[in-house]
């Protein structure tokens, strides 16, 4: 009996340490982590592709205020209320961060003090970014206005409020490989679009449905999903659901008008405002990828 108890305790201890181990943060290895110096000028484009301002600038901010990244509106989802933090170069933001800290946040979802971030911060997509783009973005963020103040913490529901559990979640869903299988003959433009859509642009985070654990259902990649905040539906954007030509997709991203001159709406308004800032070649590449993906 005592032996049984002892083995149970031992088993429990082994299980707990195993759980502790598999949920541990996995920082980027030294040969992968982004290297300084980044190019701030090139980083501006990455900021727009990544849509940083959509969550980290004040809600409804226009013009220069979109570069004040003190933390924006709460994202109210079924998992709880997520508060985007201050990412401006202020002591309340990321002023004290190293490039490695920033890269581990972007591509591993780990804070400088070694905690997991919630995937409301779309590092599952950012994980596909190149080290160079991360370095450029970091350099650019450093040139933006410092905003004082930390926004109040969000309110996450049980069991999702156990941050350590995200470590396990990451083992299931944090995958740096490409999502869509493109033919070997896919043109460079389509591949450039794949990088923008699946990586920094994180289009799949809203346009792909999620499973019960909040991971993206890759079998239904970009096929449309219920809105994360419960406001209607986010449309599918692959040819099966979206009948627009590549030129029409690129034009929509630039002007905010559909081919029928309906206008962009909902959360896509922010996204389109970002996309309009990009070079034409990026919008064309995104469109080329969306036309090339076969589910």
């Amino acid at each position: 009996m005592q032996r049984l108890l002892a083995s149970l305790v031992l088993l429990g201890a082994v299980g707990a340490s195993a759980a502790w181990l598999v949920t541990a943060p996995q920082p980027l290895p030294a040969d992968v982590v982004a290297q300084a110096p980044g190019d701030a000028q090139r980083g501006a484009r990455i900021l727009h592709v990544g849509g940083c301002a959509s969550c980290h600038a004040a809600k409804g901010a226009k013009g220069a205020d979109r570069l004040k990244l003190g933390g924006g509106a709460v994202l109210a989802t079924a998992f709880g209320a997520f508060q985007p933090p201050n990412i401006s170069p202020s002591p309340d933001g990321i002023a004290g961060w190293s490039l490695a800290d920033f890269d581990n946040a972007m591509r591993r979802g780990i804070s400088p003090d070694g905690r997991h971030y919630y995937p409301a911060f779309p590092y599952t997509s950012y994980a596909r970014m190149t080290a160079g783009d991360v370095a450029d973005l970091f350099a650019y963020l450093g040139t933006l206005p410092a905003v004082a103040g930390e926004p109040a913490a969000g309110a996450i529901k049980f069991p999702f409020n156990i941050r350590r559990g995200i470590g396990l979640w990451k083992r299931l869903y944090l995958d740096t490989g490409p999502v869509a299988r493109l033919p070997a003959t896919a043109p460079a433009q389509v591949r450039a679009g794949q990088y923008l859509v699946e990586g920094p642009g994180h289009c799949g985070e809203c346009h792909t449905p999620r499973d019960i654990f909040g991971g993206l259902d890759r079998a239904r990649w970009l096929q449309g999903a219920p809105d994360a905040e419960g406001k209607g539906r986010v449309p599918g954007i692959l040819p099966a659901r979206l009948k627009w030509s590549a030129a029409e997709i690129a034009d929509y991203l630039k002007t905010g008008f559909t081919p029928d001159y309906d206008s962009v709406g909902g959360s896509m308004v922010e996204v389109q405002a970002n996309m309009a800032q990009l070079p034409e070649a990026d919008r064309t590449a995104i469109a080329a990828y969306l036309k090339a993906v076969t589910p």
Partner: protein
Amino acid sequence: MLRSMFAAVLAVAVILPAATAAAGPIEDRQAIMKGNGRDTKMGGEMLKGVVPFDAAVANKILANYAAAAKAFPAHFPANSKTGGDTEASSAIWTMPADWKIATDKFQKDTAAAAALKPTDAATFGKAFGMVTANCKTCHEGFRIKKN
């Protein structure tokens, strides 16, 4: 010849104000938006050069916008929050002050655009831009796409 034919066809098409059947507020406001969409398509194609610029048509489009903006807010009574595949967001009724700001701006901008009375494509482009900047700001918070 072809040009004037185009213009004639366009003029007939835009001269009709948005069909406002007395079916109910949801149908009425949808008809107004449908009219806006039709006018915007026409204006956009003129500005892109898909169809030739016609000042009469352009001014009619702007007049239609102003009339639509004026009529629009009256079609959101409290009993029309749901039903009839409406895409109206509940924010229209829960944030009435914000809604009023948006609809007031739409009225002000459409009136100012119509007052420009453009005689060339460049001026029409300016007026068109003043009006259509309202589309996304309003659809961001007050419309919910269901499909």
